[in-house]
């Protein structure tokens, strides 16, 4: 609108210094990237990470602590970085570039060729890696460290931004803890304890953790003895027991907004971009196709993977190909029939799509079983499916697009369109969970803050202004819609299943007889 930029958005001198500190920190890493060989690597790594961390902390304190507690969205759509302006695109390009190099050209980060030692950026991280686990750093160690640093620093920022909101503070502490402990430190220590163990982030559940059932991984667990076996069993229990129980009680938020690392990054680093998600109906349609396709792909791929290293005969191991495929088909059928029986009517036409999806999966599995040979499944080399999944879903989708495009697509593009785990949890949340967002009677003024700031692109207002509770599979329960609502309309809660979904024509506050007449039809 106006040429003169709104003034309140200019940053203070303290903030400028803080940004400078952060940039210097990043610059040290950039120098390392371009093969400047620092003498005291440990010192410079500490300096670099310290500057980034302190820069973020000082910046956030200057941004929020001198203001009264409350919603801090002033100027969000005026700032270039948070409104798809030029800075947004630049940051997007840098992030995307970083991911491409990380996944496909780690040698440019300085990853050692066979037998050699690390150079460049990766070598800068050697001292820390040696300290934690006694082995030199890899590109994944660098990534994990930066990832953790980012969640911690920006988590702190987020907590200041929402310092009036205990829900926001607690769940941020939670994701910070799970990232630092479970994703970063514990796997390193596990390696020290027993270096046969494959890298295992215990909070990362299949199918998000798509490699847990890979042959090398399962072999690793099994060869690591009891502890490995325990971990493998824990992984399987997580999928079939813990996850459904927790999701039933609390909704998928227990994972997506309190535990998950992808969610953790989205909620902290991604917070300034949450408003960029599309709320169009067309985006929702696309989302439903996309995420379920990924789910189907991941189920078929994992089954095929496991299948490919199982044997034919009972003599080797009780779990043969035939037994395994029957178990999978049996389980899927049980879920399918259960859902149709209990929720078929509620699902309406969606049940039809569900049925089609189900039969496609079963057909695929049967075809695989009857056409598969020792090294080919679906007439494709068995590893190919798995590497295609790893490449397109695991790397390009979750990393390059999911995180690299934060400033363009919003912070949860991966969680919304691509994560198979989110699809499973969401399915359950929609059908069998006590969680909902309650709408406060007739209080909504249709202002749109809730929809705008929903990172999952849910048009929250569309429900609230009808006085209807929000029960959506994609809702990660971040609670931001509730926080930004200026009229106190939304409350995330776990209550009974009954009356959870309550479509209304006439809202509370009008003529009681009219409400009865119209709503009870």
């Amino acid at each position, binding site marked *: *609108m*106006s040429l*003169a930029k*709104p*003034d*309140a*958005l200019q940053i203070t001198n303290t903030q400028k210094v803080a940004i400078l500190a952060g940039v210097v920190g990043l610059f040290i890493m950039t120098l390392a990237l371009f093969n400047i060989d620092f003498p005291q690597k440990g010192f410079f790594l500490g300096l670099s990470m310290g500057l980034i961390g302190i820069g973020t902390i000082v910046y956030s304190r200057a941004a929020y602590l001198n203001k*009264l*507690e*409350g*919603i801090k*969205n*002033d*100027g*969000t*759509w*005026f*700032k270039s970085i948070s409104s798809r302006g030029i800075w947004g695109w630049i940051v997007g390009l840098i992030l995307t570039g970083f991911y491409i190099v990380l996944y496909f050209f780690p040698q440019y980060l300085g990853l050692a060729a066979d037998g050699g030692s690390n150079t460049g950026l990766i070598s800068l991280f050697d001292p820390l890696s040696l300290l934690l686990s006694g082995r030199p750093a890899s590109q994944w160690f660098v990534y994990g460290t930066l990832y953790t640093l980012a969640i911690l620093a920006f988590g702190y920022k987020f907590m200041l931004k929402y310092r009036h*909101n*205990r*829900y926001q503070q607690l769940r941020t502490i939670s994701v910070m803890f799970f990232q630092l402990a479970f994703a970063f430190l514990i796997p390193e220590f596990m390696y020290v304890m027993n270096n046969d163990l494959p890298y295992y982030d215990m909070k990362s559940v299949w199918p998000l953790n798509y490699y847990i059932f890979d042959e090398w991984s399962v072999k690793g667990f099994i060869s690591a003895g009891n502890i490995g076996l325990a971990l493998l069993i824990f992984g399987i229990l997580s999928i079939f027991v813990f996850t459904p129980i927790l999701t039933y009680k609390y909704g998928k938020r227990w994972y997506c907004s309190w535990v998950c690392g992808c969610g953790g990054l989205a909620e902290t680093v991604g917070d300034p971009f949450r408003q960029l998600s599309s709320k*169009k*109906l067309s985006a929702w349609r696309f989302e439903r196709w996309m995420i379920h396709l990924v789910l189907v792909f991941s189920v078929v791929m994992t089954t095929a993977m496991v299948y490919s290293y199982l044997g034919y005969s009972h003599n080797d191991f009780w779990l043969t190909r035939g037994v395994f495929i029957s178990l999978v088909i049996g389980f899927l059928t049980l879920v399918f029939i259960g859902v149709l029986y209990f929720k078929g009517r509620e699902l309406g036409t969606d049940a039809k799509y569900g049925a089609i999806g189900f039969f496609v999966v079963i057909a695929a599995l049967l075809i695989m079983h009857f056409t598969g040979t020792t090294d080919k499944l679906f007439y494709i080399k068995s590893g190919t499916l798995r590497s295609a999944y790893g490449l397109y879903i695991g790397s390009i989708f979750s990393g390059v697009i999911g995180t690299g495009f934060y400033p363009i697509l919003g912070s949860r593009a991966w969680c919304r369109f691509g994560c198979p785990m989110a699809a499973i949890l969401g399915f359950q949340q929609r059908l069998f969970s006590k969680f909902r967002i*309650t709408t*406060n*009677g*007739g*209080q909504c*003024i*249709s*202002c*749109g*803050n809730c*929809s*705008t700031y929903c990172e999952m692109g849910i048009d929250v*207002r*569309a429900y609230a*202004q009808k006085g209807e509770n929000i029960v959506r599979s994609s809702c990660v329960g971040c*609670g931001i819609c*509730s*926080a*930004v609502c*200026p*009229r*106190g309309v939304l*409350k*995330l*809660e776990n209550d009974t299943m009954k009356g959870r979904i309550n479509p209304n*024509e*006439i*809202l*509370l*506050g*009008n*003529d*009681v*007889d*009219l*409400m009865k007449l*119209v709503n009870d039809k």
Partner: protein
Amino acid sequence: MQHIVIIGNGISGVTLARHIRKLSDYKITIISSETEYFFSRTALMYIYMGHMKFEHTQPYENWFWKKNRIDLKQAYVSEVETESKTLHLANGEKVNYDKLVIATGSKPNKFGWPGQDLKGVMGMYHKQDLENLEVYAPNNKVCKRAVIVGGGLIGIELAEMLSSRSIPVTFLVRESSFWNGVLPEGESGMINRHILSHHIDLRLSTNLKAINANEAEQVKSVVIEETGEEIPCDVVGLTAGVTPNIDFLKSSKIDLGRGVLVNRHLETNIEGVYAIGDCAEQHEAIGNRRPIEAVWYTGRMMGETLAQTLCGNKRAYNPGHWFNSAKFFDIEYQTYGWVHGAKGKPDYEKQFHWIHEDDDKCITIAYHKDTDQFLGINTFGIRMRHETFDRWLTEKRDIHYVMEHLAEANFDPEFYAAYESQIFELFKNRLQLV
């Protein structure tokens, strides 16, 4: 097929159109001049503050109207001729109708202050007002100070808007304490202090005398009635209430008071012509309500009701228990039932007031002095459940029941500190004193 024409695409007109479409196949046309599509007026402030862009304030996507066969026409109706059922548009076109609904909303009050039409003087009601504000107050270099006249809900929103861009604000409030025509003293006082803590120059018991111009016919300063003080400023916001936006009906045969006069069925004196929303005026006020109810919710309810009537199920406008909400900078406010400020308080109303030591949360509960019946609650900084209070009001619970069960009505996010026991303690102590 019947052609229903609605003038005004605000919440009342749009709710009506949506409900008619659900109930019938009538041809529906909405004529409105301000914007092409429906947007939420209550969200205007967030556009200026950068929380949202204009498109975010539109509750329905643009394809929605065509899909639901609701024809939209962006035009200004300059005259209504009820004999021939014809509307004359400012662009010269004519539109015929079978049934006409007037839902033209409000416009800001102007009380004949000298200088009220200068450049840089504006109300805050229409989208055009916002665009105007963007011209005269884009930042604190162009606008070194703004003066807001009128301490109501829109005035305090405007103050928040301007201070989000670090523009110094002087806030002239006629009353001796902010909004104390509506709020009891304890609450009003807390909001005064909250306004001050946002560095707003709040002037209570202060009236505007005149607005002075510079050579360019633009605002230069305002003069205060009481002291004669001249305050230099670049923008003046007039937010001293609103009046129905019905000047274009003066030449018509439709009965007008301050608004379009309607009966309980929302019918005007002319058959087939109705009025809803901010612009409708009841011949007699309903209960404690005002004859003109200029709030979002009532506009919606009138739309819901009239749709029934127009689709063959004639119904009176018969709203349930009163409720409302607002936000004063960082403090949210909700009300259920009736709690009166000192001025309009009926004899039978007694009040119980609790305020938190942080001075940012308080509640006031009104009850009947003889029967102890619960009459209403104002809550600041604590969210409460509409459904629960609506039920308690219907069940005619007494204050003791409400105090004991207050926790059931809590609607704050999970893990928030709860204050019910503190409130209950105070209530018990009060009882012992009496």
